[in-house]
């Protein structure tokens, strides 16, 4: 038996966020890795002619993926009880048009400071080596005046 901390239930955390639920985002949690999934539905379409996912939904999905990764690494047990990291800035590169199918996301924390974390996130559909979008952003972990953040 290891002494490792209980992994937080990130899917439960996501389901508590109305907008994540609205986009149909769930979290597949396996051991020490999480993959976010945005289940396709018509409301996610931005261009009905191609058809293609709305760029905004892909951006929102990558942002949510980054937040999920931060919550996964920085919270214990009841993740829903702790404060969510706040986005400071996010840059999204749109690489391919998003097809009307499920989208998967993974994020990686590049650098973690006391107050700010830098995160990279990637979204793909049927082939992970052909991502549809990538993002990097900064997130505020704890407010400056919060002693818990020190």
């Amino acid at each position, binding site marked *: 038996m290891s002494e490792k901390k209980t992994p937080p239930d990130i899917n439960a955390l996501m389901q*508590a*966020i*109305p*907008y*994540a*639920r*609205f*986009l*149909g985002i769930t979290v597949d949690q396996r051991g020490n890795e999480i993959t976010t999934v945005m*289940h*396709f*539905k*018509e*409301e*996610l*379409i*931005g*261009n*009905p*002619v*191609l*058809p293609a*996912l*709305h*760029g*905004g*939904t892909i*951006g*929102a*999905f990558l*942002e*949510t993926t980054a937040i999920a990764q931060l919550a996964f690494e920085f919270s214990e047990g009841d993740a829903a009880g702790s*404060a*969510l990291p*706040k*986005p*400071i*800035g*996010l*840059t*999204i*590169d*749109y690489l391919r*048009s998003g097809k*009307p199918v*499920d989208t998967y996301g993974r994020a990686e924390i590049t650098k973690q400071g006391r107050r700010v974390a830098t995160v990279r996130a990637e979204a793909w559909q049927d082939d992970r080596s052909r991502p549809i979008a990538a993002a990097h952003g900064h997130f505020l972990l704890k407010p400056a005046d919060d002693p818990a953040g020190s």
Partner: protein
Amino acid sequence: MSEDQISEEHIALMKDVLIQHVPHARALGMNVVNAKRGEAWLSVPYDEKLVGNPQTGVIHGGVITSLLDNACGIAVQLALPARMSIATLDLRIDYMKPATPKLDLTAHTHCYKVTTNIAFVRGTAYHTDEDDPIATCVGTFMLAANRAVPMPISPEAAAEAIKFLEKNKDGKA
């Protein structure tokens, strides 16, 4: 009226084509408030389903991303001499402050440069005062991105697209 002004009919067309035929824009309740050559003002009404932090009731950053992305796309369409398909290349968003719960969001975007292949656009999201922004963005769009029919579409293409989506409804998760 200067030639920079867009007619009421043109705004109505924008609303119809770029909002009513874009399922995600419709799902968020997006609305074209105003438009002129190269510039667009869009709004999203506050809704509980768009909340990102259930403890505070603050709207999710992703809603602002969607609003700015859509508003940037419309500003680009309004800057182009002819309608063509466009695709977001990149979009950078800076969040200045959290949105205030219960208040509607507005975005003002400006396409300030169009080259042969690329359009450059920037924008601001705010509640009532543009000088007190919630978020700002800067983005680039690829022009004539697809050989497919451009976004502002004919009724036939729209009907075909809706048919396609109906057909694929069963396949959705």
